[in-house]
């Protein structure tokens, strides 16, 4: 597997896309009309620093007005990209690999959260898509499966989830294989 240079995830509330995030300093963009324009230079000529107002660890585009306030609140409480992802999961959002060159999936078919015992371990959706973990994301179309889109939220679940994906011909079969691997769908 080739890791992406910059991780790029789509965040869902239920089946609805609410945010697209990149693990890179950038801007926070709302669905509301344009924010104030050119923020001016970063300093004196020759400065190569980021533009004024650049977020230190994330570039993000919101996609659901009703969720924006909560998403920003969680971001403000976060200390890093990974901390933000963890807070999003705790708040009930789900995370899928984003392949923007294929167009955003604004709605996913109803998915299932996966639990390893009582711990949230991942999620899967019955539509073609990419397998990813939160820390390592495949490049391009690597690890794309017809049977499901899937994310391992815990590294301990990654191998089991990937093996079940590779062996399954249908979404129901995937859930059966995951259950046999002690990953129960809620």
């Amino acid at each position: 597997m080739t890791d992406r240079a910059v991780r790029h995830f789509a965040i869902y509330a239920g089946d609805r896309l609410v945010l697209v995030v990149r693990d890179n300093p950038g801007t926070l963009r709302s669905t509301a009309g344009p924010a104030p324009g050119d923020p001016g230079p970063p300093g004196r000529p020759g400065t190569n620093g980021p533009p004024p107002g650049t977020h230190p660890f994330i570039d993000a585009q919101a996609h659901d007005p009703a969720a924006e306030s909560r998403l920003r609140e969680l971001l403000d409480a976060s200390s890093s990209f990974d901390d933000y992802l963890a807070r999003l999961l705790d708040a009930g959002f789900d995370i899928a690999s984003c392949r923007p060159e294929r167009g955003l999936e604004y709605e996913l078919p109803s998915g299932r959260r996966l639990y390893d015992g009582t711990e949230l371990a991942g999620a899967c959706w019955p539509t073609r898509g990419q397998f990813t973990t939160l820390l390592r994301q495949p490049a391009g179309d690597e690890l794309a499966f017809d049977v499901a889109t899937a994310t391992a939220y815990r590294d301990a679940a990654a191998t089991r989830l990937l093996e079940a994906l590779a062996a399954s011909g249908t979404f129901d079969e995937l859930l059966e294989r995951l259950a046999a691997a002690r990953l129960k769908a809620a």
Partner: protein
Amino acid sequence: MGEYTHAEPTVEDAPRRRVVTPPATADLTAVRSAIGNRAFGSLLRRQRVARVASHKPRRPAPRRPPSWPELEAALADNTKDVKAIVGRVREDQLNQMWKVPDWVRKLAAAMSPERFAYLAAAIMLDSSHVPAGRKEALRLLSAMLHDKETALRMIVRPVTVVIVPRDMQPTELEEFQSLLTKDEGKGPGKTFDGRQWAHVRGFSDVTYGIGVYVAIIEENLLGGAPDPKVFEAPTDDKGNVIGAKGAVVGGLPVGFSNTTHEMAHAIFRQGLTAEERKLVTRCYQAKRAATSGAGSLVANLWPDGPRINPVAPKRWKDKGWTDETRLRYLVGLSDDARRVYENYSSQNVDEYFAQLANAYVGANLGIDGATLEPRNNGRDWVASKEPKEMLDLLDRLFNHATVNDIDANGELKARGRCANPPRPPGKRGRT
């Protein structure tokens, strides 16, 4: 700037009220003062008591509304005036037609695209807060609904387009109150980039119940500026301040329609098929790729002009930057970091489509907020800068419609039709 004509609504144009029974006291101002703006907005919705006082009819009650068979027969007859037929149906009845999709589909099959576009716009429009804006809103929305299948998907979703009065915060209206209190009241009612939703004038794709709602604004339909009081700090049901006061801003440029912009967002999300959205995405990404690098970043290929302004603004030059040093700096930034300096239509695929739609219908006047460069406008411009597959899609959606009368350069013609016209002198406050 020349003079522009604008279809100023008449009393005859105004739809009949949903219910025209005012409260017993008829003292709406006193009620509003007593319970606060937000609760007053909810009251209006619940009781269907809109501002009847300023819209007293000059003539007796209108004709009997048509029965459903009469309505169906009249709408299916393409020789009859669809505006007159639709005008005989109460708006709240039109707004319920999404519940009978088979009947609407049957009508769609029988009606010409232009006539069905008008009916579709009337089904989606809620002008109950601003009856005076109804005629102009229908003119603009129907220009964008020429593709029956797209319109049907939006009707069935259902999509509702609500006109927000110029003197109300959108979050005072029931459909948009969730923006203040979503997430069990934990959210502070802010946009992701930190603004107050209460102060945003126009947005799309707000889910409420089973529907999707679009907020368009009175001042952009009838011209002029919003009432400064809409930028006051938002309050909750009990009148407690729950946000900060915002900076007062005026109206949008003459000829720029954020009505069509927001409707384009709704079309993109709720009307287009997944394959059509992928086509738009491909075109967006191709344009991003074609405007990367030192030379092409400044190419004028986007609906809102070049991706970045090649000339350093004064605030940069005041700090010693030149055009060359600034351009070198911008080229060296990552795509993510550079976005704050780039035009609005290049920010993401949603804004690209919305601004491209605006340009197509001739409503993309003014300058871009980030680059300060003029926006591009008109179908001719779109045809010259977009691939054929994108132009084909827009032609199917909008069928060469233009909501402004513009010349070959995309500029407004004097005395022509104009969305967002200059506000006539002396007209202030509510219409």
